[in-house]
């Protein structure tokens, strides 16, 4: 029995979106990163201890549809606002990880009055020539754990859980899934994950918390300072023994930080 409920909602554009839901309390929307949610995603489960959490899957992820008509940052930003509206939520706490953080920041910048509380966890969206972000799209699967996790061994076990790479059928399914996900993510992350967010961050009015894994090797923690400097009144916290997959590696610390906002 899964800890998470699941349903689909339809946006006015006609996209059918898979949404996981659990818990009770204040509404919180969690936007996943480029890798999508894990099965019974432990971070979503953790959030449900304190919040009524909704975790929609972007088109191209799991069985969410509608990716054909989404091509750019504005399209994806407005699509995600459509999903929040379709869920009947008004100004939920908006939490995004990595690519999801980039989308959440855009939503808060495009429609500042619609976001009261914003949590950006190792968000993408900025670029610093002195600290270039590693190329997620030119990286082989076996190279990912070292890039994403504080402890690559634990990470490798998590990423391959339930996958049998000696089974050709499973491997073919994995290729299709991976292509759909990262094909979609590439629309805002390829070849450089910068779609002009730095020019819009000043518009954010939400109370904003920025969380970073101290040993994030995909997006170095110095990016946290850049976000913090650009969003008025925002707070930056760096969490030890965590890499880019901070929400999976230190879920309790992340939950407590969010609850304190």
């Amino acid at each position, binding site marked *: 029995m899964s800890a998470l409920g699941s349903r689909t909602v339809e946006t006015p554009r006609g996209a059918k979106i898979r949404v996981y839901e659990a818990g009770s309390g204040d509404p919180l929307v969690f936007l996943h990163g480029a890798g999508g949610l894990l099965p019974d995603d432990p971070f979503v489960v953790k959030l449900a201890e304190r919040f009524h959490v909704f975790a929609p899957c972007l088109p191209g992820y799991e069985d969410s549809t509608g990716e054909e008509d989404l091509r750019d940052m504005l399209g994806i930003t407005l699509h995600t606002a459509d999903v929040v509206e379709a869920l009947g939520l008004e100004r939920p706490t908006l939490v995004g990880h990595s690519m999801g953080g980039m989308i959440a920041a855009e939503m808060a910048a495009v429609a500042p009055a619609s976001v009261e509380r914003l949590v950006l966890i190792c968000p993408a969206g900025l670029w610093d020539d002195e600290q270039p972000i590693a190329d997620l*799209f030119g*990286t*082989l699967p076996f190279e990912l754990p070292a890039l994403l996790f504080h402890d690559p061994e634990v990470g490798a076990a998590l990423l391959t859980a339930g996958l049998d790479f000696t089974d*050709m059928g499973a491997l*073919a399914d994995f290729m299709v899934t991976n*292509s759909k996900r*990262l*094909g979609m993510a*590439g*629309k805002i992350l390829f070849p450089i994950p910068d779609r002009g967010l730095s020019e819009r961050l000043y518009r954010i009015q939400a109370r904003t918390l920025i969380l970073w894994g101290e040993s994030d090797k995909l997006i170095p923690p110095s990016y946290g300072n850049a976000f913090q400097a650009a969003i008025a009144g925002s707070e930056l916290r760096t969490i030890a023994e965590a890499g880019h997959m901070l929400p999976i590696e230190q879920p309790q610390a992340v939950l407590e930080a969010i609850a304190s906002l």
Partner: protein
Amino acid sequence: MKFTWFNLMPWPHMPDDFREKHRSVWVDIDPKLYDPVLGHEVYNTYLDQLEYAEALGYDGIGVNEHHANAYGLMPSPNIMAATLARRTSRAGLVVLGNSIALYNPPIRVAEEFAMLDVISGGRLVAGFPVGTSMDTNYAYGQIPALTREKYAEAHELIMRAWEADEPFAFNGRYTKLRYVNCWPKPIQKPHPPIHIPGGGSVETYDFCIDHDYSYSYLSFTGYLRAKQLMDGYWERVAARGKDDSPYRAGFAQTICVGETDKEAEELYAEHLHYFYNRCLHVYPGFADAPGYRTIKTIKAGALSQLNAAQLMQFGNLSWKDLIDGRYVIAGSPDTVREQMEEMIKGLRVGNVFALIHVGNMPNEKTRHSTKLFAEKVMPGLRDIWPEYKDDDRFWCHPLEQRVQPAPIGSGLEQQA
């Protein structure tokens, strides 16, 4: 049969330990390995070879486009074709091709191809590849999942620009032009013949068939491995009710001809090894950007692609492996003719792109092999498709009366 002598233009000076010391021949190859002074000789030698091929009677001479690639030194194939247009007079100029999603705005391709067609007197065979992921996505930054849509739009713009007889507005998603007006226009009407190089995307089959473009399968793994893919193409041709002219298809084949089988091995084995060991050493992380292939294509070919990925471990293939596995057609003229016939009939292709310069093959050996193929192999293969001998839909149609460059210093230049 139409034979095009094709030069990939590889960099012939990669070190012996290239494979051990470098992760990829493409995209992030060490720029220090290139030496422009040596490059001066390399380019001119390769261009001389293409011109020599015309003199020997090849139907076409071919160039293509790659970026940040040490086995393909032609970021701009049109520059190469322009030099060839002036120094040759008969052969088709096969530009295979311009990656039209990379040109901004793509009207540039319509213009440059028209220039080549006009300079050469109608000798252009135009290619429109989608491009490899290495070139298109990693080296040229196109978003993988949008590449095909951008390609389709660029194609529409170019064809309309060539065929329009007055300026028009083009409101595309990727290109917006208030005034599309292609000056000059190509000589060949309604447009030069178009070949689409493909690597097995199922969408490309239908695109070629519906437009009567020739589908060219470019691979380095030989005709045995191409059979399944080309069978798939011919099934689509039949399903869409088109004739089965072999000129609807082409195949790129590495070929090495010696006086005897033994001489071929002695002369060419080291250069094949250079090509398969160093030139094809591509970091797998650059092979296929996620989203570049459609889901339909992945589903159709996921497992065979995995097999192909395994086959890409070329490094340890011996001469015998390469010959027995038919990656390469090599040997005496008789051996080569026999295997070429098997390839041509097996794949049902009317266009052969003969890859005769291989890896770091020196000029004399390249010319030796090129000449033997022209004189002792080609004649025996000319008439394999008698029922389609008059099918000229997929080849260029040069002007009968073409201007030749005047001799330099003759005083005639301005009248030419």
